[in-house]
């Protein structure tokens, strides 16, 4: 970091950069959520299933996020663990209308939490119980029960219901994430 960069940082001109992993099963709405968080001029109109992964950026009031938007398809899920080291926070997206695959989401979350790169680091995890607008969606409380989130003791976590198409609930989650990261840095 050059002297100028440091100066900019102190003055609050340049925001701190945070690497975030966005994980979740396929079709849960990861790319849509990231897209919705981007500034309106950078948003894309049609979203297609992610192949492999893509890197996206967005800024909040205090932080600059770099998001690894991973593909959630079964065959790409083994890519996730290669990026665990870089992640300083995790966004885990759940399709709350897909009751059948809740066990699969739980299984993937458990393997994530037990991974050596994640297990002993106190990184914040933000859960999005997405697709809240659908008729047969489960509530965020029910989702956290089914994923047994209460068993996560050594990490800060938060779950919020969201509707990524309209952008509802996303800001609340990102604000929480920002507070956590700031608290961590201090």
């Amino acid at each position, binding site marked *: 970091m050059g002297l100028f960069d440091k100066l900019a940082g102190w003055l609050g001109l340049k925001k701190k950069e945070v690497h975030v992993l966005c994980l979740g*099963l*396929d079709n849960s709405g990861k790319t849509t959520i990231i897209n919705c968080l981007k500034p309106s001029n950078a948003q894309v109109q049609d979203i297609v299933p992610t192949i492999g992964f893509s890197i996206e950026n967005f800024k909040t009031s205090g932080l600059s996020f770099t998001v690894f938007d991973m593909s959630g398809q079964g065959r790409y899920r083994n890519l996730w663990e290669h990026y665990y080291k870089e992640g300083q926070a995790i966004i885990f997206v759940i399709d709350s209308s*897909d*009751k*059948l*695959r*809740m*066990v699969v989401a739980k299984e*993937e979350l458990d393997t994530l939490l037990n991974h050596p790169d994640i297990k002993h680091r106190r990184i914040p995890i933000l859960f999005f119980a997405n697709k809240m607008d659908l008729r047969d969606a489960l509530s965020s409380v029910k989702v956290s029960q089914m994923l047994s989130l209460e068993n996560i003791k050594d990490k800060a976590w938060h779950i919020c219901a969201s509707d990524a198409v309209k952008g509802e609930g996303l800001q609340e989650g990102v604000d929480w994430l920002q507070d956590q990261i700031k608290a961590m840095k201090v």
Partner: protein
Amino acid sequence: MASGGPEGSENSEANAKWLDAHYDPVANLYTFSSCVALADLQGDGENKLIVGDLGTGLYNMKLKVYKGTTMLSENTLIDLPTGVVAFLMDTNEPRTPAVAVASGPYIYIYKNLRPYFKFTLPPLEVNSLEQDVWNQVKEDKIDPLTLREMLESFRDKGDKPLSVRSLRYLMLEPHEMEAFVSLHKMQPIKRQTVITCMSTLNKNMADEDAVGCLVIGTENMEVCILDPEAFTIQAKVNLPSVPVFLDVTGQFDVEFRIIVACRNGSIYIIRRDSKRPKHCIELNSQPVGLVRLNKNIVVGCGKELLQAYTQKGKKLWTVQLPAPVMTMGLMDHKSKGFQAVLVALANSEVHLYRDKILVNITKTQDVVTSLCFGKYGREDGTLIMTTKGGGLIIKILKRTAVFEDKDTSPGPPLAQSIKLNIPRKTKLYVDQTLRERENAVAMHRAFQTDLYRLRLRAAREYVKALEASLAPVSADLQEPLNMNAVVQGIGPAFKLTLNIQNTSATRPVINLQISFLYDQTLYSIKRSFFKIPMLVPGLTYPIETFVQSLSDRGISDTIKVFVLRVGRGVPLLTAHIHMPVSEGLVVG
């Protein structure tokens, strides 16, 4: 899980392979593997579950479609479904498959979950004699009784079987005939067959989303291939028996192979351009399930056996199963390149066999009657099972699950580690052997002397018994008889039953009598002397009498029973019955 023991670890290991996604014990799905299919019916990338529900077998037959854990739609079926398949009829976009439900002589085609088309099997030829007779009935030339006689004569000698109407007519009572004839005589008679099994065959491409032809097996021992658009029969093969399971590979226009399991316990292999089955595999029992694994045919047989054959009919291996087979299915996990056979057993287990190696056991809550593995929703490795009680079980294969071929060579037998129960020898035994060593001669002599005496005593007693005929088994070779007596009751009235049996091979015994000898102050028997009926060899004759105890002081005595021959003083056999003490009060 150290406390779990070997079985516990086995179970947790099995759980480690499958995730329990959904279990609904009251889903009310009664079906078999042939009536379950998975397809992307709405073209939204999510596979739906299509179930032909048998209901009770008479009522409530439904075509149900599930999405995720909820039912999407329900269509009432008129008749029992025998097969449900999803196939692409055309190349129109979007590529939504049609659902074909076979029931009776019809195939109902549904598109977008709405009835679309009904295909009827062409009627079979009618017996010409039968046709003539019914024509005469139409013109009122024959009365119902003559019609019946004529039909009966055709039934026995005609080369073609009679139509359903004639067979029904032959079952009627005479008073019902008139009404039946007047109701049906104006309609033409026809003979129809029923579909027993159904499958699909790609028309000219090997792709997943290629246009498919329906392949059906019928009750009149034929396999037909239908055109996907025009629904005409394109090819027909006659079989020696009724087909029950079908497996189809290849493409209709290029080369195909149909493996058919039949009701006569044989498997036939049909290839393109063959009018007759090319190979035949004879099983030693009825097939319960048929699965093709790459180039091998795996068959579950009635005798708890799982057998594999090559397509030429060579037997490869046999596995003995712990319980009867309920149903079988193919587990084809394409993204992993893993193929195995799922076998649901009657002991509520689902076994997974890769070749002859058992790689996984899954315990289920109930006996599984139908199995289906494939892509359901968005998940590739989903196993859908329905149970005998109508439940629905959905399990998802873990992404990280690996089926390892365990070493199946048997270790040392279990009996090897069981300790033998050999009694310990104490000091008493050692002392005894020392004494025997020192005084062996005296011991031997004393024992021999005692033995002589014993023999003498035994012979004397035996002669005495023979002279008095005291034994309950007759010693006379001419009249082999056998008797035993049973006393029932607690008194003062007892029931005395004598079971007498003639043990000779062929000779009956006649002219026997029974006499009781007892203390007349203690007991009274109404008839103490009577005749026995003729004794047929082999049968046991229970002869009952009633004994009344007279003493009120709790004295019991012996009653003697003699079986006598008329004209001879010496009894043939004797029984001594020790009467129990009477526990009741003597009245009067």
